[in-house]
């Protein structure tokens, strides 16, 4: 869209882009700002990064976050892959129910699931903590993974497994060499996406963490409630870089490993659009 031809829309777009990016830019700038008040430029420093990296709270928070993200990614992928395999051969009505359940997990507010699980775990005397958070994250993460993996599975000719059997592959070999191998790009993409979602989650973690588990986003949340220091900016930038790198890897993986009849743009659309 050309600015000259649509001046109002163009200006509006600029404002929106500004609102989105200026705070992020401010975080990045202040993460190397010597002035701890963050209102003026006091010269460049890596002090806040060093502080963040040596902060024991941040370090345990990061470990907790990665544990949760890995656990939830694994659980989500297992659910999504087995669900998708069932889905392919299921009757139409059962499929519709399954699809509705998947989309419900994406659409319904996270806080609803978090509250419900919180009460369920209390009733069942299931201890709050890392395990509880993994379960909570898997509720919606498995849905995102399911959408991505199913999209790929629909594009696969159902006859390829028969072809594998015809060529001498036992059912297990056929699954490994054909079905799973053909789905691998989608599994990688889905895995990285769910890892990222889990990585920056606040709501579910807040409800289900109890006293024992405080993942990084909650550490940050706790920090700004008591004191605002440029250390937070440094952490923010690092998390941001980490997430962007992960997304980059996801896109690269889904194109490089050989997406099924799609190009890079479709892989991107698949990753972000659905």
């Amino acid at each position: 869209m050309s600015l000259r031809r649509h001046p109002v829309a163009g200006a509006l777009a600029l404002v929106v882009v500004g609102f989105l990016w200026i705070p992020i830019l401010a975080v990045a700038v202040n993460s190397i700002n010597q002035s701890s008040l963050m209102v003026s430029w006091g010269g460049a420093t890596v002090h806040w990064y060093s502080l963040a990296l040596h902060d024991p709270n941040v370090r345990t928070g990061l470990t907790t976050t990665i544990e949760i993200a890995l656990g939830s990614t694994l659980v989500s992928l297992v659910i999504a892959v087995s669900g998708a395999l069932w889905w392919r051969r299921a009757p139409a009505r059962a499929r519709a129910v399954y699809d509705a359940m998947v989309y419900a997990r994406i659409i319904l507010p996270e806080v609803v699931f978090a509250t419900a699980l919180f009460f369920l775990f209390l009733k069942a005397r299931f201890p709050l903590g890392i395990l509880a958070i993994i379960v909570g994250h898997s509720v919606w993460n498995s849905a995102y993974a399911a959408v991505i993996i199913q999209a790929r599975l629909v594009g696969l000719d159902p006859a390829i497994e028969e072809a594998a059997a015809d060529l001498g592959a036992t059912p297990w070999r056929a699954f490994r060499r054909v079905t799973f191998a053909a789905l691998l790009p989608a599994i990688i993409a889905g895995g990285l996406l769910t890892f990222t979602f889990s990585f920056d989650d606040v709501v579910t973690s807040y409800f289900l963490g109890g006293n024992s588990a405080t993942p990084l986003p909650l550490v940050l949340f706790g920090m700004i409630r008591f004191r605002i220091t440029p250390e937070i900016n440094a952490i923010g930038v690092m998390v941001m870089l980490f997430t962007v790198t992960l997304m980059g890897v996801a896109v690269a993986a889904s194109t490089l490993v050989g997406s099924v009849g799609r190009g890079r743009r479709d892989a991107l659309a698949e990753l972000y659009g659905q």
Partner: protein
Amino acid sequence: MNGESSVRLSGVEKRFGDLVAVRSVDLDIAAGEFFSVIGPSGCGKTTTLRLIAGFERPTQGMIEIAGREVTGLPPYRRPVNTVFQSYALFPHLDVFENVAFGLREARVRRAELRRRVAEAISLAQLDGRERAKPRQLSGGQQQRVALARALVNRPEVLLLDEPLGALDLKLRKEMQVQLKDLQREVGVTFVYVTHDQEEAFSMSDRVAVMDHGLLEQVGRPEDVYRRPATPFVASFVGLANRLAGRLVGAAPGERYEVDLDHLGRRSAHGPPGLAAGAAVTVVVRPEDLRLAPATGPQGGPAAATVIDVAFLGAHRMVRLDAGALGQLVAIGQGQSTVVPDDKVVLSWADDDAWVVAAAAQP
């Protein structure tokens, strides 16, 4: 063809719930034969192929391949390979790995695997495309990958399920010739399923015609065309004029005499054992039907009226209204003189007429 049996089905039946897809089929396909199964969609031909491949288990009956019973064996234990209608190429593997798939499953040594894959790839004229993914190939190329992937395993029998169905007409004709040449070259038994009778006729040593799960006829293409066993075969295989009549009795020279309504009594060949008085159908191919102008009242009653004449290039096709016998079609070079509404007399050589028992038809 060395006369050995390659595929044998004995009393094979397949039910899906209430639906009987294949009923009591007996079939004996010789080694090295190009055998086609034709029939309309839903006739059971694909199910028959899937039974041989092992994707379906028969409800009843026995299947033997190369003299060994395989009825209960899964597809991966059968010495057959399939070319699928959709090709079913592995999208994540390149051409080389697609072709090598079966050899890797069979744990063929590296050097031999390379050699055989290269051989199959050049047989399929895919040299230079080894590293291409299936989606980067044209339909014809994909089809040839599917063929190479199956043949590289040197199966006893190659099963082909409408392998040319997805190609356009010109490519189809080319591939028909290539397939036939290939089959002659490798000497593998081909079992070829198609709904296109012309395709089957041009390539096959023998064809089987199926309808409603039943084998209607098995024979050489010319026999099936010239001497159809049932009215269904007569009408499915090429254009046919089917004249309803009543059998009067046997005539000299292994013929029958048939009363054909207002066309009078005619004699025709037919299978042995037809009883006098039976309702029969006389099959006359359009190219065998001769038309002569009905000349005046003394020439007898006009047998048919010309409805229209279509120009087909090499010849003309004349549609006729033969009163109680329905609409007829005549094709040939000699039909050029008639015009619509002409009254004509119909004739044909006795040898070109074939009697079949009228089936209990809807």
